[in-house]
Structure formats: structure tokens, C-alpha cells
């Protein structure tokens, strides 16, 4: 399941803790980084690797919002809509992106390019409104800036 580099990484991480189970979140991050999302097979693989029950892994995957159990778009657009961003117009940004990409929050475009999500505070309130696309933060946004960013991704 995990390629060799990532498996070596995981082995190194496991050594940081007295119990293997503690490496569960890091292991799931590695799987998702490689596969894009976490399949049942991957959960079973991780369960076996860390010697914990499959049900435990499933419980953890479904608890944390950053773990996906289905494929996401190549660009996962996550717009913060919490207070500070809301005060500075995040709603407008969401509806604009929604229109541009032809998807509602929670949906993935048919060609698999974009997934749009409304997310909770990302700790960028001083540079609101903002969004995160995959691992990167985009701050101090305006409709024009968002348009340019989307264009560069298409």
C-alpha cells in the first residue's frame, strides 16, 4: 500500500512513541498524501501495520475532518467562513467560486478538478478573507484575486 519511501518514513515515526497506535494520525496523513483519500483497504493496511483493530482506524478516519474516505478534486478549495472571514465577505467568495466552478460547497466537479468546501477557522483572521487550496493558504482575498487564482489552476 504505502510506497517504500513513505513506509520508511512511517517506521521512523513509529519509533517516536512507546505504542504503535500513536502513529495512526501520521500514518493516515501519509496514505492520504499518496492516494488522495483513504480507502477501506488502506484502513485495513494501516490497522495491520500498527496492530490495531480496523474498526478503530475507521472510527478515527471518520472523526477528523481532514481525512477523506472518498476521492476529492485535484484542487481542494477550502474557504474559511468563520466570523472574521464572514465579516469581510467570505460568503461572496463562496458563491463566486461556486459559480465559476459549477459546484456547490461539498461537491466535486465532474472532471475531478475542483472540490469546494466551507471550512472552520484556519487561523488567518488577520488576513481575512482567506482560503486554503490543498496545503497552501491564500490570504487577503478579493473576488478579483480569487478569479486569478482559479484561472491559474484550471
Amino acid at each position, binding site marked *: 500500500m504505502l510506497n517504500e519511501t513513505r513506509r520508511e518514513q512511517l517506521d521512523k515515526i513509529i519509533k517516536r512513541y512507546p505504542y504503535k497506535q500513536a502513529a495512526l*494520525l501520521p500514518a493516515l496523513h501519509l496514505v492520504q498524501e499518496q492516494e488522495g483519500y483513504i480507502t477501506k483497504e488502506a484502513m485495513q493496511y494501516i490497522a495491520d501495520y500498527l496492530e490495531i483493530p480496523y474498526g478503530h482506524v475507521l472510527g478515527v478516519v471518520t472523526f477528523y475532518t481532514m481525512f477523506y474516505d472518498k476521492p476529492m478534486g485535484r484542487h481542494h478549495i477550502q474557504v474559511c467562513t468563520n*466570523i472574521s472571514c464572514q465579516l469581510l465577505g467570505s460568503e461572496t467568495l463562496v458563491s463566486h467560486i461556486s459559480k465559476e466552478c459549477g459546484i456547490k460547497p461539498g461537491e466535486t466537479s465532474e472532471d475531478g478538478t475542483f472540490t469546494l468546501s466551507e471550512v472552520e*477557522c484556519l487561523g488567518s483572521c488577520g488576513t481575512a478573507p482567506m482560503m486554503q487550496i490543498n496545503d497552501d493558504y491564500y490570504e487577503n482575498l478579493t473576488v478579483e484575486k480569487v478569479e486569478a487564482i482559479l484561472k491559474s489552476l484550471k
Partner: protein
Amino acid sequence: MTDTDIKYLLPEIPELHKIEVYEKEGGYEALQKALAMKPDDIIEEVKKSNLRGRGGACFPAGLKWSFMPKNSERPKYLCVNADEGEPGTFKDREILEHNPHALIEGTLIASYAMGVTTAYVYIRGEYVKWMKLLEDAIEEAYAKNYIGKNIAGSKYSVDIYVHRGAGAYICGEESSLMNSLEGERGYPRVKPPFPAQFGLWGCPTTINNVETLANVPVIIKNGAEWYLKIGVEKHPGTLLYGVSGHVNNPGVFELPTGVLLTDLIYKYAGGIRDDKKLKAVIPGGSSTPILRGDSIEGVRMDADSLIEAGSSIGTGGVIVMDEDTDIPKILERISRFYHHESCGQCTPCREGTGWMEKIIRRINRGEGTMKDIDVLRDVADNIEGNTICALGDAAAWPVQSAIRRFRGEFEAKIKMEKTVAA
């Protein structure tokens, strides 16, 4: 030098994140000094300094450290809480980006003082960039033997590891953080037992916020007496105030505790946008009670002053709202957040946060009744104090305070609908 010029968390020194620059500026001298001290003396010094936690609860850090058992056969752990997630809070990432070695040095001193052999930095999953920056800094510190075996020529050994979260606000709560680190769902634990007795894997553990630990090096280097002179004596030091919302110049400002809230808004954050009037302020992150704009004259930003004003310093994340702000709409968003982030363990919180969101949404849609306001208040009152962790309180306070201080706005929405219907 006036009080407001003291900046030790975010001083204006270019490239301070690099270990060579940090050392040139006197970095890691406090660690050397600490390693020559008795661990108990360090804890005493931090106790004397009145350093209070910067994660929201203001708990005295030295006292927390003193709860750790002295002669433990089990390993002891320190968790650094970098799970910054309280809406309106964006300060710890500034330390991680611009002054990570202050955090590392503080972590090392704290670890030595408590006899900790492994420290974990639990960082929120979305902070990928800041996680990498911190990992680079940790690597530099390992290379210079500040972390690892027999650090800085002493007999003391310690490791620091970064552990990435996965998008759950609740994991900023200390017992939930430990569960998450153990590879569990992020459920808070019933206390007692407290982490110092039964923490990570049942071993003695202390959890401190990033900013709290970043304060430790200056306390050890300059002494508690020096530190006590900064800001308010009962809650001394500088704070990283994050000001966001309807201000001209939002951002993080390092200033002493006890600064006037009005100064923070008008002097440092440049005042309200478009010269509008101030309607409301949330002074310490979304869970802290909302204040009316016309009630903040003379209110100071420290633990006691804000309690007196009917709110809380929280994380120092100040959210500013101008006269056009629709308070019930803001409250709906806040309640949606706590509903989403409730872990679901305790019935009052799991069910109550959902009901609060539903009722406020109903009022905002014009489908509310006058009775809804009292029901809302009632639900909030029944969550507060009836849950395992503080998320329940955090969800209740904004609702209680918004109704108490802006009741008219809720009533107006309900009455307006009645008029339209008639």
C-alpha cells in the same frame, strides 16, 4: 524604553528564525543558565513570575509545572499545544514562523524543570507550512545539540517531536489533545485524574500553549522580577493580540498585558473601516462573551479587567464589528461552529449546540417567535457547566452574552417578520 516597546516574542529582527541569528541575539543563553540551575528553582522562578497560560484559561504556568510528580518511575511528557483553532486566534503561527527557537528553548527549559524526556508539539493539521518551518528549526537545534542526548554539554537528554493533527477544534482541549496524540478519536477525558497524574499513556504529562512556552526564556534569562514589571502584575508579560474584523490595520500586535482595548482597536489596528462606529467586540476568541461597543471605554486587556467587564481575555483574539454588523447572523455562524466541533460525548453539548444553531437560524430566517429567545437562553444555560470539557461553556457564552447585550436585535428580527406577515 517604554513598556510598549518591549517585544521579545516577535522582535523586529530579520531572519530570527535561523538558529545562527537567534544565538547571536542571545538565544539559548537562558537554556544554558537553566541547565546550571536546580529544576525546582526554575519552577519557583516561573511561579514567582506569575506567567499565566496563553491558551485561553490563564492558568499559572509555574503552578501547573509543580503538579508534576518529582520521583516518577514512569516517563514524563510535555505536550506543546500548537492546535491554534479558536476562531479569531492567529498568534501562535507568528511565533512558529518568526521565532520558533524561542518556543524550542522554552520547551527545553520546561522539560528540564519537570524532568520530561520527550516533548510532542501537537500542531493543527492545516498548518503544513508552519509545521515544516518548526521541523526545520528543530533539526537545526538537534544539529547544535540543544536537543537530543546530553544537551549543551549537560547530563540531561530530551527529544522533541512534531505531531500533526487532522482538523478537529476539540483537540486543542488538553485531554482531547492527548487522546488524539495516542491515535484515538479526539474525545476529552473526565478530570480528575489530571494530566500531571494520568496523562499521555497514563504517565505524568503537562500541556502548555506555544505562546506560554515562548515566554519562558526571557523569564529565566532576566528573572521573575524583571518580568513582573511588564504589563499588569497579576498577569504580566507581553501578549500577542490578534485583531481582526472591521479594522483598517488588522494583525498581531505584541504589547504588554493591560493595554486599553480602545487603544488596541483605534491606535494599533488603525480604527474602524470607513470611519464607521463600533458596534461590538469579541475580546478573546469566539468563545468569549461579546461586548457592546459603547461599553469598552477604559476596559483593559488582562485577565481580571476583562472578567470585570463581563468577558474574558481568552486567547487575545479581538474580533471587531462595525455598526452595520448583523449580530444574530454572527451568532448563527458561531453556533454553527460549536455544533460542528462538538465531539458528541456529552448530551447537553451534542444536542444543545444543534438546537442553538437551529433556533438562531430560525430567527434569522424570520421564522422565530419571542419565546425562541428564552428557549435559546435556556438551552445555553443548560449546557454551561454540564459537560466534560469547556467546549460546552464555549458554545454557551456567546449565546448568553449576545442575548443579554443585543436582545433588541433578536426581537427586531422576530417583530419584522410579524409585520410582514400581517
